[in-house]
């Protein structure tokens, strides 16, 4: 199925993307309402929650340039030392900018 990107077609496409995204926003909660939350399920949820973050970040670290790797390492270090997110994030971005400015391309 193909939609032409006329004015009406584009609106239909945007509506479609919105609908698919809404399904993902609502779906997990909707399905969970049929699940009894046992300690085991709760343990699953808790481990899964932070694993989402790790699963997003891991390929970033491996696919990115030296700048992105530097950003993640510096963020991790500052976060573990200070436990304050904002300085950690700012330092991480600064590290990426600096590494790229200096033109470092391999470790």
């Amino acid at each position: 199925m193909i939609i032409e990107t006329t004015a009406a077609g584009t609106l239909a496409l945007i509506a479609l993307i919105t609908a698919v995204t809404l399904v993902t926003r609502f779906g997990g909660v909707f399905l969970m309402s049929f699940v009894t939350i046992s300690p085991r399920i709760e343990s699953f949820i808790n481990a899964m929650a932070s694993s989402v973050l790790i699963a997003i970040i891991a390929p970033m670290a491996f696919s990115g340039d030296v700048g992105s790797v530097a950003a993640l390492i510096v963020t991790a270090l500052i976060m573990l030392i200070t436990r304050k997110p904002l300085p950690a994030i700012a330092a991480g971005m600064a590290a990426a900018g600096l590494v790229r400015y200096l033109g470092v391309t391999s470790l």
Partner: protein
Amino acid sequence: MKHASYRYQFSARKVRSEFFRLLPISLFVVAFGAAFGLAAVQKGLEPLQTLLMSTTVFAGASQFAAVDMWGSEVSLIPLMAVVFAINSRHLLMGASLYPMLREMPPGRRYSLLLLLTDANWAVSAQEYQGGKRNLEVILGGGLAIWLAWIFGTWLGVYFGGLLKDPQSLGLDMVLGCFLLAMALGGEKSPRILVAWAVAAASSLAAWKWLPPNIHVVVGALAGGAVGFFWLGKKSEDRQPPAGDKETSE
């Protein structure tokens, strides 16, 4: 329904403070939004269409991917598949908030999910690990990010040419650094660390060998499986929200 008592007390004051708490990260969302607005008009979307998409979809990565598939015509199935795959992490994110969400009426519960996005979810999920219930950040923080996303898109649509090289400022790494900081700020028991190792390995393997865009879900489910088979200390230790305190910066 067993959980007919909707006990979650929403604090308007806390919603406001969470709005301001996520304003700093929203500044970066503006930059992302600008990059999206620029990409969309370059692909031939009208400014108003682009703004409409940011307003109703509000999921950056999937919007970039969708716009990337734009042309004079768009095939539906691949578009839906890609958008679903990229956004499927919302399924897990929503599920992880369910223990809190079930304590509010369904209308309010699903309305909140309209504003669910990575950053406000990460804050809420992390605080839940620490025994604090914070759905206010989904609303307040979500509003801050949503408005920033729309505003950024607007900037990009009309002034996008000014944002030449966001990478040189490290802007592409904001979300990665933010999510990493959130993860490291949470619980770090041996059980969680094993879950992370499994999640990272599975995510990388899926990213390398499976079809694109499903690595997040694969990694997250693998990490969750560790939790399923390796129970942590009793979850009843967790304190209910009485006297929740802020830990904003």
